[in-house]
C-alpha cells in the first residue's frame, strides 16, 4: 500500500526525524490560507500515488500566498500517470545548501533490509546509481540484531566525511528512519532529498513510504492511512472482494486465477494480435461471488469487446467459477461475447453447468485466447 508524502512525514515526525511543517489543502483557497499563515515563500506539492511528480509539473514554488493559490489551481485536478490529484501539501520553502539521499528497502537478493545513502541526492539519484555506483553507500541489516549504531554512524560519515556535526545528525536520522520502517511495516522508505540548510541543519523535505500489504492486518493505524479516493475505484472494488484488478488499454477483458497465469494469459492475448483490457486475478479459493464481482468490473469497462476466462483448477474449483459465471449473467447483461477456458479440479461438473446455461467451454489455452482475440475484432 502506498501512503502520501504528508502521511509519511507524520510518521517521520512521530519518530523524531526533522521535517518542515506542512498542511494539506484540497482547494486553492485553502492553499492560499495555509501559505499566508506560514508567510513568505512556500512549496505546493501534489499528493498522489505516482512517482515522477516533479517532472510532471506537480511540484511548484510560490513566493507568496496569492501565487500559492495559483499553483494549487494548476496542480489540483491535474492527472499524473492516470491518477487525479485531489490534495496538495503546502510547506514553507527551505533554503537548500546541499541535497543527499537516504533510503532503505527489503533487498530480495540478500533477504535483508539494506540502507542506502548518497551525497548526490535529488531527482536524478537513479542516474547517479547507474553511472557512479561508487557514490551510493550501503549497510545491510542483520535481522537478528537490527540496525547497529556503528552502522548508522559509518553510513553517516560516508555522507558528510568532513563535517562531524552533520554526520551525527545524519546518524540519528538513519537510526530513526530504520525504526520508522520497522514500526510502519514498510518495504521501502525514502528521504530524497535530505537537505542541509544554509545554517547547517538537516531536514527531510520529501518522504516516501510503501507499506507491505501483509502488515495491514496487524497494523490498524497504518491501514487507516489508505486514501481510497486517490485510488482507481474499480481497483478498490476488486480489492474488497479479494481480487486484484489493474486497468489496461486493450479490449480483451481477462479473468484468470493466479497472478502468474494471468500475466501469461495477457501475454498470449498480445501474441495472437490482441490487447488485454485488464489484469484480473480472482485468487486461489474462488467463490461464485468473486466471479460475479469480477464480471461486474470487466463489463463496466466500455472498451471491453470480448471477455476471456482462463481457469486452471487447483485450489480453485472449476464448478465454482462456472456457477459464478451463470449467476453473474443472470444479474448483468454482458453485452459482449465470452470465451471460457477451464481445466483441472471439477472440470466435468463445470462444463455441465455451463452447457446447461447455454455456454460452451474450452480446455486449450491457446485456442481460447485466439478465439477471444478474434471476437474482439468483430
Amino acid at each position, binding site marked *: 500500500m502506498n501512503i502520501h508524502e504528508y502521511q509519511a512525514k507524520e510518521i517521520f515526525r512521530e519518530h523524531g526525524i526533522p521535517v518542515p511543517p506542512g498542511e494539506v489543502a484540497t482547494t486553492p483557497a485553502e492553499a492560499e490560507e495555509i501559505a499566508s499563515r506560514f508567510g513568505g515563500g512556500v512549496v505546493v506539492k501534489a499528493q498522489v500515488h505516482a512517482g515522477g511528480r516533479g517532472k510532471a509539473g506537480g511540484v511548484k514554488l510560490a513566493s507568496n500566498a496569492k501565487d500559492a493559490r495559483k499553483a494549487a489551481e494548476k496542480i489540483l485536478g491535474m492527472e499524473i500517470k492516470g491518477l487525479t490529484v485531489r490534495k496538495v501539501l503546502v510547506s514553507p520553502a527551505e533554503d537548500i545548501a546541499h541535497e543527499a539521499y537516504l533510503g532503505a528497502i527489503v533487498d*530480495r537478493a540478500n533477504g535483508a533490509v539494506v540502507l542506502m545513502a548518497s551525497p548526490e541526492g535529488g531527482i536524478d539519484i537513479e542516474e547517479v546509481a547507474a553511472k557512479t555506483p561508487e557514490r551510493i553507500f550501503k549497510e545491510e541489516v542483520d535481522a537478528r540484531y537490527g540496525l547497529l549504531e556503528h552502522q548508522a554512524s559509518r553510513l553517516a560519515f560516508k555522507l558528510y566525511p568532513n563535517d562531524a556535526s552533520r554526520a551525527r545528525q545524519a546518524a540519528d536520522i538513519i537510526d530513526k528512519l530504520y525504526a520508522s520502517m520497522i514500526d510502519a511495516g514498510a518495504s521501502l522508505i525514502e528521504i530524497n532529498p535530505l537537505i542541509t540548510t544554509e545554517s547547517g541543519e538537516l531536514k527531510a523535505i520529501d518522504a516516501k513510504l510503501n507499506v507491505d500489504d501483509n502488515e495491514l492486518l496487524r497494523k490498524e493505524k497504518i491501514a487507516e492511512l489508505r486514501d481510497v479516493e486517490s485510488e482507481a475505484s474499480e481497483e478498490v472494488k476488486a480489492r474488497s472482494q479479494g481480487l486484484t484488478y489493474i486497468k489496461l488499454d486493450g479490449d480483451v477483458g481477462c479473468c484468470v486465477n493466479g497472478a502468474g497465469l494471468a500475466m501469461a494469459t495477457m501475454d498470449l492475448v498480445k501474441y495472437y494480435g490482441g490487447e488485454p483490457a485488464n489484469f484480473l486475478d480472482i485468487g486461489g479459493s474462488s467463490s461464485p461471488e468473486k466471479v460475479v464481482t469480477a464480471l461486474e468490473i470487466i463489463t463496466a469497462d466500455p472498451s471491453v469487446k470480448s471477455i476471456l476466462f482462463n481457469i486452471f483448477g487447483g485450489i480453485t474449483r472449476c464448478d465454482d467459477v462456472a456457477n459464478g459465471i451463470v449467476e453473474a449473467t443472470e444479474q448483468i447483461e454482458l453485452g459482449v461475447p465470452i470465451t471460457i477456458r477451464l481445466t483441472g479440479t471439477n472440470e466435468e461438473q463445470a462444463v455441465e453447468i455451463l452447457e446447461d446455461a447455454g455456454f460452451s467451454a474450452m480446455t486449450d489455452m491457446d485456442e481460447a485466447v485466439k478465439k477471444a482475440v478474434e471476437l474482439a475484432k468483430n
Partner: protein
Amino acid sequence: MAIFADSSTRVVVQGITGRDGSFHTRQMMEYGTKIVAGVTPGKGGQKFDDEVPIFNTVEEAVEETGANASVIYVPARFAAEAICEAADSGVELVVCISEGIPVLDMLRATRYVRDHGSRLIGPNCPGMISPGETKLGIIPGQIVEKGPIGVISRSGTLTYEVVWALTQAGLGQSSCIGIGGDPVIGTSFIDCLEAFENDSSTGAVVLIGEIGGTDEQNAASYVKEHMSKPVVGFVAGQTAPPGRRMGHAGAIISGSAGTAEEKIDTFRENGVEVAERPAEMPKILSKVMNG
C-alpha cells in the same frame, strides 16, 4: 531419484486440522505421501481421520514419529513462527504454503532456518511434487507424470499450465518445485538448479519466472557457469504495465527494472532457450534434449 523429497520422506503437517490443512493432507495421503504426524497446538493426543497422530508441538512430532519434513498450512500471522519451530525441531525440509506473511517477519525466519541448517521452500508457494514418489503441498497430482524434466517456478497456476503441457506431450517430471512469489523466500532458483544438476534422474530443467526482481537474471548466469544440463525458460509479464513506481530504492539496489524483456534477453545471452508461450515449452525441450 528426485530432489529435496522422495518416497522415503516422512512428513508432519503443521495446521493439519485447519480448513486448507485437512483438505490437502487428504490429497497428499491419496497421492502416497508418508504423512506421519500432524501438529495443532491444543489438539495433541487426538488423531486426524482416525489415522494420523496429532501433537501439540513439532518437537514431539519429530521425536515420536521421526518426521524429517514439514508442510505448513497455518494462517499468515502464525506462519513465520511455525517455520522457525520446524527448523528448531530439526526438520530438514520445511515447505510453507501459507500466504500473506509480512516480509519483515520472513527476513528473520529465513535467517533462522539457515542458522539451523534446514531448507525452507516458500512461503506463498504451491509446494513441491516428485511424481510417483511424494508430494508436499497443493500441486494437483493428476497433472504430473514421472520423467526426466525438473521444473522450478515462482508462480502457482502457471506452473500447473506448463507442467500439464509437458505431461500431455509425454515429457514427465523428476520434481516440480514452486519456490513462491514473495520477495523473501527460502529456496532460490539457483538452489534448485544446483540440486537438479546433481540429480541423476533429471535430464533438463524448465525455469518459469515472472517480472520483478533479478532472480531470473542471477539464475541465467548460474546456468552459464555451472550447468551441463539444458535449461529452458519462460517469463510471464511481457504485457504487464510499467506501473506508477514510487521511490528509487528498488532501482538503485538491483540496477534493474525487472522487466520481462530484460529477463528474456539475459536468459538468451546465457544460453537459456526461451519459450514464448507455455504450449511451446515441450517442443523446445525436445529440441534441446536431443541436440
